[in-house]
């Protein structure tokens, strides 16, 4: 069980939205983690500096928050390590071909009412619901 956290989740979601608006307003870029990371893998794109800075900021933020409150961020990875790694490979391959993930398609693209992002988001959400159902309720979970 995880606790239902509507206020923290709504607030956190609003901050995600704020970052998307700011990155578009100043850099003219979609705040999608897949696209930002792709430009950091070899051969790195020429505009790697802002990408690296965005990723570094995203990693540092939880460290700063934990410095203020040790209980503000919950974390539990309930899946065995081999499956975490398999899932990483699958997610990496998938988001490369779909050109985006939850942040790029699910937030930025949906906010622009992009037909590609609406289709992508519907597809990966349904796939995730089905996968969890099959693993937890048909196969008995990990």
């Amino acid at each position: 069980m995880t606790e239902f956290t509507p206020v923290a989740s709504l607030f956190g979601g609003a901050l995600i939205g704020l970052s998307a608006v700011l990155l578009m307003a100043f850099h003219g870029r979609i705040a999608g983690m897949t696209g930002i990371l792709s430009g950091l893998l070899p051969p790195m794109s020429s505009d790697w500096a802002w990408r690296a800075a965005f990723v570094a900021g995203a990693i540092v933020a939880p460290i700063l928050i934990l410095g203020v409150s040790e209980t503000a961020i919950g974390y539990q990875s309930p899946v065995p390590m081999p499956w975490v790694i398999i899932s990483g490979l699958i997610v990496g391959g998938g988001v490369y071909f779909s050109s985006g993930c939850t942040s790029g398609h699910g937030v930025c693209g949906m906010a622009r009412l992009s037909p590609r992002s609406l289709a992508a988001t519907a597809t990966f959400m349904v796939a995730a619901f089905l996968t969890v159902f099959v693993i937890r309720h048909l196969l008995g979970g990990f």
Partner: protein
Amino acid sequence: MQRTLLAGMIGLVFGAGIALSGMANPAKVLNFFDLAGTWDPSLAFVMGGALLVTAIGYRFVLKRDKPVLEARFHLPTSRKLDLPLLGGSAVFGIGWGISGFCPGGAIPALGLGEVSAWAFVGAMLAGIFAARTIRVALEQRATQNA
């Protein structure tokens, strides 16, 4: 320099949002997808809050001629609902449903110092790199045969 520093600060806002919302917590994400079991609807509030702010903010931002620091907006122009988009999304959703990690959730989770987050991100970057290598090889073969 200004461009890079500001991107870092915007990244901080993104990471704070992911971490506080619960998106960096794989158990919470998996419970959102577990309608038939230990359902936790929090993720709907994350998406709702993010979409509301982005949709309203974009309306004002995209009315301008160009962004503050760049010559133009970099917006995707493709409108095709093709196999890479839908197949890639389905594959991504399966991977997300296995572990509860997505790219935007996992990167801030690195800051929590959890081994599982680092393992996921390492594998994910290898997956992106492998997919790109395969695509480039296939495209080269297609041009050679043409």
